[in-house]
C-alpha cells in the first residue's frame, strides 16, 4: 500500500519558489502562466496487509502531527492499495 501526500503552501503565504519558477518559465518564453505553486510530495510505502481506512486514519494523523504545518500548508492524502 502507498500513501501519497501532496503538500502545498497556503494561498496567503508568499511562495518565493513558485514565483522564481514562474519567472524562469517566462524567461524561457512560456506564456500565459498565471501562477506557479511549489510544494512537497511524500510517498510512504507500507507493507503488510492492513485495512485501507485504518492506514488513512493513521497517515492523516501523522500529517497533522508533523508531516505538515497547518499554519502555512495544506495537504491532500491519497491511499493507493497495492
Amino acid at each position, binding site marked *: 500500500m502507498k500513501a501519497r501526500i501532496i503538500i502545498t503552501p497556503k494561498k*496567503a*503565504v508568499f511562495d*518565493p519558489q513558485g514565483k522564481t519558477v514562474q519567472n524562469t518559465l517566462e524567461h524561457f518564453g512560456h506564456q500565459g502562466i498565471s501562477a506557479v505553486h511549489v510544494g512537497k510530495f511524500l510517498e510512504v510505502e507500507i507493507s503488510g496487509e492492513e485495512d485501507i481506512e485504518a492506514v488513512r486514519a493513521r497517515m492523516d494523523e501523522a500529517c497533522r502531527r508533523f508531516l505538515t504545518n497547518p499554519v*502555512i500548508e495544506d495537504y491532500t492524502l491519497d491511499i493507493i492499495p497495492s
Partner: protein
Amino acid sequence: MKFVVLQFPGSNCDQDCFHVIRNVLGCSVSYVWHKDTSLGETDAVIVPGGFSYGDYLRSGAIAKCSPVMSAVHDFASQGGLVLGICNGFQILTETGLLPGALVRNRDLQFVCEHVYLRVEQESSAFTGASRTGDLIRCPIAHMDGCYYIDSDGLRELRANNQVLWTYTDRDGAATPASNPNGSIHNIAGVCNRAGNVAGLMPHPERAAEDILGEESGLAVFKSMLAFHQSGKAFNAASSAS
C-alpha cells in the same frame, strides 16, 4: 540563575550558547539531551540553533516530536523562561509555543551576515536590559527565516506587544532593504502572549564578546538574568500561548 541548553541531533549552536552563558554571563548551565523527558532543576531553557534532524521535511518539524519537548511545554506552561534562537525559534513555532511560522527566505538562499535589530519594547523578560529603540548588531545565519503570520495573528501580536525585535538599518529604520529575509513587518523575534517564551532568528550569542567584535547581543541574556533576579514571575495560568 541556572540555564539548560537543549541538544537535538543536528543542533550546532548549543556549545555557543553554553559558552556565552557560562563564560560571559557567568551563570550556571547544563545540557539536556533530546531523549530526556525531564529538564531537571532550571530557571530557563535555551533552544539553540542548528539543523535539528537536518532540517529535513521542514525546519524544526521533526525536533518538535522529541521527548524533551513535552517537558518544555510543561515548563513553559508553569511560567518558565524559554528562548529559541534560529532553529530553536523554528522549533518553538512548530510546536505552537510561539505563534506564526518561519518559511524560506525571500531570496531562496541561505544568508549569513550581520544585521541590526531594534528592540521594540523594553518591558519583556528578554529585553529588559535594553531600552525600547536600542539597536543590537548581531549575525543571522539561516535559510528559512522569513517570519509569516496571518493578518489576524499579526493584529493580535501587535495588540499584545509580542513583537520584541525587528530588522532595521543602522539608523534604526525598518526598511525593505534592511529586511534580510522577507519577514512580515521586518519581524525578527516575538514572544508568546504571556511573555515567558520568546524566539528570534538572529544569533545574539554570536555577538556577546569583544574578541568577536560585538557585544550588544549579550543584552538578551542579561535581560533574562535581570528578570530572574528581580524575582518577578509569570503567572502559570496565563502563560499558555
